[in-house]
């Protein structure tokens, strides 16, 4: 879980920073988007890097889901009879919502790819004009899209908060002081990443980016 999670987190960081290019204007953003497809050129021909990256991410996602499934099946097997009075959350909500959170994020990723990568669900849907795709997507009258994105990103934030802390722990973080730091770092990271992702749709919604 920890290792695949870290790969995905690295991608998310890059993705979030790239998104912020939207504030530099349409030309610059579109140029950046096209560059993403060509990284590695001329060492690698055309979109090779893009496909390598897609492959690694897909493997990471599948492995992440597989590991989560193993854990979930184990925990179901470990408690065949459920409590009649469902246990209250005593620790953190972030930790207790990992599985459902993960499912929400997966559904979102599928929608997101159909929306802004393939363009099937996008009102503009022109792969050569990512900037206008984005602007059209989060237009005020399509407020429900923004709402869905927001919910998904909040779910992602929760997922990352516990995921990041848990990764530290699984990889052997062991002192009480380190635990406090790991928790704080996970929180800051989760909030910063979520905020970074959320500014784009809200900027469009409020007309800051058009």
């Amino acid at each position, binding site marked *: 879980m920890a290792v695949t999670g870290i790969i995905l987190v690295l991608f998310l960081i890059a993705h979030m920073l790239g998104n912020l290019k939207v504030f530099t204007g349409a030309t610059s953003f579109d140029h950046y988007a096209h560059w993403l497809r060509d990284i590695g050129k001329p060492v690698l021909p055309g979109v090779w890097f893009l496909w390598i990256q897609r492959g690694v991410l897909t493997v990471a996602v599948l492995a992440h889901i597989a590991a989560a499934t193993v854990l979930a099946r184990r925990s179901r097997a470990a408690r065949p009879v459920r409590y009649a*009075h469902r246990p209250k959350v005593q620790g953190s909500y972030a930790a207790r919502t990992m599985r459902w959170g993960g499912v929400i994020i997966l559904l979102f990723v599928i929608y997101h790819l159909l929306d802004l990568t393939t363009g099937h669900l996008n009102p503009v849907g022109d792969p050569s004009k990512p900037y206008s795709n984005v602007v059209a997507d989060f237009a005020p009258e399509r407020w429900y899209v923004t709402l869905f994105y927001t919910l998904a990103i909040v779910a992602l934030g929760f997922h990352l908060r516990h995921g990041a802390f848990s990764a530290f722990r699984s990889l052997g*973080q062991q002192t*009480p002081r380190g635990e406090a730091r790991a928790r704080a770092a996970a929180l800051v990271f989760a909030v910063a990443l979520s905020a970074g992702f959320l500014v784009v749709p809200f900027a469009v919604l409020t007309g800051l980016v058009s």
Partner: protein
Amino acid sequence: MNLTLRIWRQSGPEDKGRMVTYQVDDVSPDMSFLEMLDVLNERLILAGEEPVAFDHDCREGICGMCGMMINGVAHGPQRGTTTCQLHMRQFSDGDTIDIEPWRAQAFPVIKDLVVNRSAFDKIIAAGGYITAPTGSAPEAHSVPVAKANADAAFEAAACIGCGACVAACPNGSGMLFTAAKVTQLSLLPQGQPERYTRVIGMVEAHDEAGFGGCTNAGECTVACPKGIPLNTIGRLNRDYLKATTKQADNTPGS
């Protein structure tokens, strides 16, 4: 005060079990939770009904024998407290209290609120010790132990093996119990020779017993009546990683 209790009744391992409602009146706030159940049982016996079976022994919070889910919380609402030390002043008149056994595959129900926790003994037998046959010990002062390490070892050693961590864990994992013993022994110089074989043996026994995997949810440490810290699991993970990677080839001196 007067209370409504909904208690899990299960006549034996094969019975499906169900929640049964009882009314208990005139409960004194100075009673312990188990004394309140004693009162219920006395009344049940006189009424010709089988008393509720529950485990208990020392009734001073140290033997680890008692334990039940009280309103969905292991050992009830007061933190750092075993069921026997929980007093009725934590509840109010008219409350409805749900009482269930620990639920886990590795802790099968024997009867009513009594479960079988022998899986914990198996984890200890798989490495939760320091090999020091009687008579072989060197003079106690021959190896000093830094006070900080001794104190941290003690903190982990305070585990009473009640199973609340497993009961509270959303995954039914016994990792806090396992990690507490690993931590105690790996913090002491006497525990070093067996440090890496110990962690492998104990984790294997843990998994074999049917406990779930740890996802660092942290419910265990909140439920723990002795406050065993969650970072013990980090210590276990670190030792386990080392044991399975660096030490895996068993080369002496590695």
